[in-house]
């Protein structure tokens, strides 16, 4: 017969905002964010921009690239309004609009919060502009606000 009951396991969820742990492949991206610059890898072989950071170009397979400053302008490709906070940090921030932003430069998509948009006003196609939120000594998150036009 199987045994039931179990020893006490202590677990409490992390109350802060979980932050990125920069790696060899992406630390430059986070360093530029810290300097309030949005720079992405631009392939030296074919000129394609890519995100998330990675060693090689999925278009032409070149491993040569430059960290290129982009306009920081884009549109809302998709979004959600998070009503249920999974992590304690977000408990007082719901309903929370989060966008998948398509950059004006082309096929590059970034996930970020829509910081100044009322949850009821979010629309696919809405123009947005990057802004930088300093959240820790070494980490700044690229977030999004309405573009002026």
């Amino acid at each position, binding site marked *: 017969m199987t045994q039931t009951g179990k020893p006490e396991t202590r677990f409490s*969820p*992390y109350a802060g905002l979980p932050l990125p742990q920069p790696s060899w492949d992406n630390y430059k991206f986070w360093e530029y964010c810290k300097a309030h610059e949005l720079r992405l890898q631009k392939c030296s072989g074919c000129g394609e921009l890519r995100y998330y950071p990675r060693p090689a170009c999925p278009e032409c397979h070149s491993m040569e690239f430059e960290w290129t400053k982009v306009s920081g302008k884009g549109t809302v490709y998709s979004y959600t309004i998070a009503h249920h906070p999974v992590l304690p940090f977000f408990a007082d921030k719901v309903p929370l609009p989060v966008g998948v932003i398509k950059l004006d430069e082309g096929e590059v998509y970034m996930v970020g919060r829509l910081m100044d948009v009322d949850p009821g006003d979010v629309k696919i196609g809405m123009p947005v502009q990057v802004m930088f939120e300093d959240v820790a000594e070494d980490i700044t998150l690229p*977030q999004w606000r309405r573009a002026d036009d």
Partner: protein
Amino acid sequence: MTKLWWQDRAAITGIGQTEYSRGLDRSEWDMAAEAIFKAIDDAGLKPEEIDGLSTYNLQHEGFNNYMHQLLGLGNMSYYVSQPHGGGGYASTLAHGALGVASGHCNHLVAFRARARGRKSIFGPGMNEGGRPWEKVEPRLPTGWQYHVPFGLQSPVQEAATITRRYMHDYGWTEDHLGNVAVALRTHGSRNPNAVMRAPMTLEDHNSSRMISDPLRLLDCCIETDGACAVVVSTMDYAKSAPHPPAVFHAFTQSNQPAHYQLTEWWHSKRWNREVTGANLGKRLFAQSDFKHDDISALMVYDHFTSFAILSIEDLGFCGRGEGGAFTEGGALIAPDGRLPLNTHGGQHSEAFIHGFNNVIEAVRQIRGVSTSQVPDARAVVVIEALTDPCGAFILRSN
């Protein structure tokens, strides 16, 4: 037709499962052991006769490597382990079945055990019980670092962004999502193993609490404890086994080079996921003796209702964007619907065993013993999570 040499050369001969519940106060090893021994017994075999083992990687440490020793199974001549969670269950069965079909082993156990109830946490690690995404550390070393700090904290928020875009592009409605939820609960309400059995209406769905817009509470799967196991045997044995065999007929997987942190869902170039999904359906049915109209039932990974609709489109049961309308008129409800879906109630109503209970239900349909039986079920499609690298297979009657 692109027939492959291994087709119809292995079959599921045994199935086993534990009770399903919000919290069983049992370890994953303990639940797995019960399910595995039951499946071996159902197949008419002894544990010492098992010489193959297949499971998923997303388990707590020690599970994959030591299960055969812990249970005193036979000398393993073939063992395999599949990455991913809900994107691993069909492939776990399939890679095991390929080992049997190719002669590497005679009787293989494939299994899954999960302790996902919130009170079932047995350690601080992500795969030591409870919901993995509630156990994040202050720093995120994986691809989660591009989503979680920005508010996509768990699969439901990610799935919501995908669902929102499909609703925008193809006109899927809240009712379409609700049709899936109602079909799942209708089947769950007939199934004594199901955790969720209370009847549900479309209105119940459309008025349920919003979790991550556009996904409501009743668009989401449940979280439970439990384990499932199956035994796959050679056809020689399967023909004389105690139960009618569920024959491993066709199998393929599909993935794209950009699969990382869901990027293919957004990118419109050649690695866009609509290509991934369409390739999966085309390859699967190219192997199959059965056409779409011959399929008796479909088992999908229903972590969220919208992905059931996408699975129907990907497999080619309707055109791209037509999946919403496909759900109308009770099309997904057994026994009379056009394509009965997850006839056990799926991960929404029966239990969340990372999809593996879908495999057991496919076998029940082939054996003719489902609680939502499709008359004369001869071929059942099983497809795993579209949000991981994805596989699908077809089981047939002998």
